[in-house]
């Protein structure tokens, strides 16, 4: 039950899974979303690091 809840929560997963719809093409979109989402998040964290450094420079 817990595993099911976790998977539903993480991937908006229901019993009739959307990942399998339209000949599984949604899985490709999910993969693309994850890759670019992950990379953007990493760049965002880098940007935060730059801001911290700028603050340090000002001080």
């Amino acid at each position, binding site marked *: 039950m817990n595993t099911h809840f976790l*998977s539903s929560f993480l991937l908006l997963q229901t*019993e009739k899974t959307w990942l399998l719809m*339209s000949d599984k*093409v949604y899985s490709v979109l999910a*993969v693309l979303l994850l*890759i670019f989402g*992950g990379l953007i998040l990493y760049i965002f964290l880098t940007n935060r690091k730059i801001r911290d*450094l700028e603050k340090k420079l000002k001080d």
Partner: protein
Amino acid sequence: MNRKTILRISYKVLAVALILYAVVFGLVSRLPDLPPLQQSSRNVFFHVPMWFAMLTMMGISLYYSIRLLRLLDPDLEHSENPLYADANARESAGVGVIFNALGLVTGIIWSRVSWAEDRPASEFSTWWAWDPIQVGALVALLIYLAYFLLRNSFTEPESRAKVAAVYNIFAFATLIPLFFIIPRMFEGLHPTAGKGSFIFDKSQISNEFRMILYPGMLGFILLGVWIYELRSRLERVRLRLEEKLAEKDYRETA
């Protein structure tokens, strides 16, 4: 504009162009039908490059770890700060870890829709297939996370750099059995599995796939280098700032 600047700009332009090409053609081109995979076979253009980008980043990290150990040699005369090499090794390993995590998550999704499509979402095996490469990738991720933990356990920068560099060399060495030797001894989900794949065979990857896969792979590797270069430059600025602050403190106390 000097040669270095031109090179820096051109590889970034090439990265964007190749990734755009892989995304657009990876989604719209006609591909041979691979029955259990259906349209999810297009994942190959995005999932596989994650591993090659990861290996490149770990390779760069290894190079700087070896370089650091050379720079710490007291018999070698140089003017380079060894901590810059350490910063480069750390930043490239960091980018490699991101690609490793992305490769793992995208692989989980792909195996869920191909190998485990008939299984209920509540089962753990639906999401984790215990495939040799999958397990190897997780072990590699843990090994590199331990690299960062190890670094954080030191306060003195030079000894931290030295121990981390030695660990990093061994960490890279583990990637070879984890990705290239052990998987060839078992059957699994990947086409490179030595005793056969449950889903699709290496011979099913035709030239239509290769035409998109290889440029995409290069594109993601270059994107990784781009992110690494940004982080490494940032780290160099931080180190230089710390040097200046230490100099200022020294002058004030003297």
